[in-house]
């Protein structure tokens, strides 16, 4: 006859292991949320710092303001945001909050960098990329890959991505400044809007700012190649 006590005992141990796993998982979820909150705090501080930096811009030299403090945090935040979206869920309130803060940080960085470059006489290229995660933008994923490849080709290019449907007033304002319609994906390159999917080659060809970057890159490569050949001949 089966020893029912052993089955009950094994069942209880299994249930305890299951319960512990759920508890530990919840513990780490909470810890992740805490980490997200600390990132949010850091963002608040960064925003304040950027506002101060922005105000001081008129007083500082171009050498000292080559990069914004915010830019350094953007990459790290973007990665953590993706992980948090994957593990806690995209609808998790703390994740949504982080996404909003991240968007604000991007806008701040965009404004600051625009001011810096205007003051210092640089001609950088800014791309604002609007996407949607709500299933109404079949080409957004492709566009994302194109922009990643574009950034790999031109590392100095500044690309800021925004969820078109994010419930954040600053993003709404950004949309209305450039008069964007809901045709996605949408790009704003140096203030000019472009709608729909743009293949990499066409994007570089059709957007004057990118065509200029490509030409500059080609010239630099040609110069490097000539220098190498000359040095070898010597």
């Amino acid at each position, binding site marked *: 006859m089966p020893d029912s006590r052993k089955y009950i005992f*094994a069942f209880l141990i299994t249930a305890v292991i299951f319960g512990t796993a759920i508890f530990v998982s919840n513990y780490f979820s909470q810890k992740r949320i805490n980490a997200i909150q600390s990132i949010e705090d850091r963002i608040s501080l960064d925003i304040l710092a950027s506002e101060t930096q922005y105000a001081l811009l008129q007083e500082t030299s171009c050498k000292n303001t080559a990069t914004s403090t915010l830019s350094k945090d953007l990459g790290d935040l973007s990665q953590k945001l993706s992980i948090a979206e994957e593990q806690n869920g995209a609808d998790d309130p703390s994740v949504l909050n982080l996404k909003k803060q991240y968007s604000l940080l991007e806008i701040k960085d965009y404004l600051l960098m625009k001011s810096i470059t205007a003051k210092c006489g640089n001609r950088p290229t800014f791309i604002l990329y609007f996407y949607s995660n709500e299933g109404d933008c079949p080409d957004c994923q492709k566009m994302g890959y194109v922009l990643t490849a574009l950034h790999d080709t031109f590392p100095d290019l500044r690309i800021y991505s925004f969820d078109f449907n994010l419930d954040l007033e600053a993003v709404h304002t950004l949309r209305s400044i450039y008069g964007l319609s809901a045709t996605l994906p949408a790009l704003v390159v140096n203030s000019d809007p472009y709608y729909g999917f743009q293949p990499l080659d066409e994007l570089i060809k059709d957007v004057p700012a990118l065509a200029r970057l490509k030409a500059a890159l080609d010239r630099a490569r040609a110069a490097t190649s000539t220098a190498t050949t000359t040095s070898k001949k010597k």
Partner: protein
Amino acid sequence: MLFSSLMLYISLFVALFFEVFLLITYFEIREEIKFEEKHNGKDLTNYPSVTIIVPCYNEESTVASTIRSLLSLQYPKDKLKLIVVDDGSTDNTQKSLEEFTHHPQIQTFKKENGGKHTALNFALERVDTELVGCLDADSFVEPEALKRIVGFFTDEATMAVTPSIKIHEPISVLQHVQKVEYNWGIFLRRVLSSINGLYVTPGPFSIFRTRIFKEIGGYREAYLTEDMEMALRMHRNHYKIVNSHNAYVYTVAPSKLSDLYKQRVRWAYGFLNNAVDYRDMYFNKKYGNIGIFVLPIATFSVFSTLYAAGNALWSIFSKIPDALTRYQAVGFAWNFNAPHFSVDWFTFNTGITAMITYTTIILSLTLLYLALALAEGKVRLKKDVLYYLTIYILIVPLWLAKATYSTLARKPITWR
């Protein structure tokens, strides 16, 4: 999505429950195992007469060694007989048997080919000893094996004793994988034995009381897994089957994937079809642990393995459209950065499913450690363990899928 999560949680819970049950049972019987290792076969006073049947079909290269290993058994010669049945071999098996024709302990027969079960039944009709066993003609026994097995028959209730099977001289990667798998089998058999839950009396060297064949009949074709059907029939008749974990038998393992695949399809197909034939035993308290626990969980493991493999395949295939999209967007101009290894806990998957999966894996490795310790004496992390951990989980779904398909489509399978 909800169904998928539910299936995943149920599978993980059952897997964890099974592992916990094995662990509890193992710790219960640890002292018993130690006692067996010390005394089993050493204080035997009564040697019952035994006949070993060797059915063979085209086993010219191994049959002579198999017989010689049987003749080397440490057992009184007047108590041990061999019946070798050539089941219509078309190679030189008969020639290999010639040297044993006049041996006083051996009777050799040749019959028309009819399958292993017919060869066994042919021999069973000629058995007049108290105990009878079988040894496949590609297997070899250790000299002490029979003494260790016979010791268990002092318990009048014991009707069959199974040995522990090891792989004979593994060479290929697949044979090393099977070596670890068989060692795991040694542990599993010993644990299941303690709850009378053995559902196979393996062809290599399982020994029976001869009278059971008179009581419940001889071997059946049973989807080419007559050893499984016999064990199930014995359980249906409430016969006790035990395992002698240190009675070692060595078998030649398939070295090629195609041969292993055929063998395992046959085993899995046999299990599924015999399970259907003996479905009345499932969840039936009348049949004890085998009905309540062992058969249901063995069947469940077939389907949960297939489900897990299907899920893994799906997650791989579902990445293909994404890769195509990426290719359409940027061609092969992908950024292949060097892998970034981060020790940041933030990147560590701490979801509920992941946590339970980690626990299940840790328990599985603990059980594997105990299994290797039981089978080998001491555990060393060698290449065979690594092969097993990396290759085995990839190949098992292959034969389970084929066997399940053949069962559902009612397509019979062949021996070779």
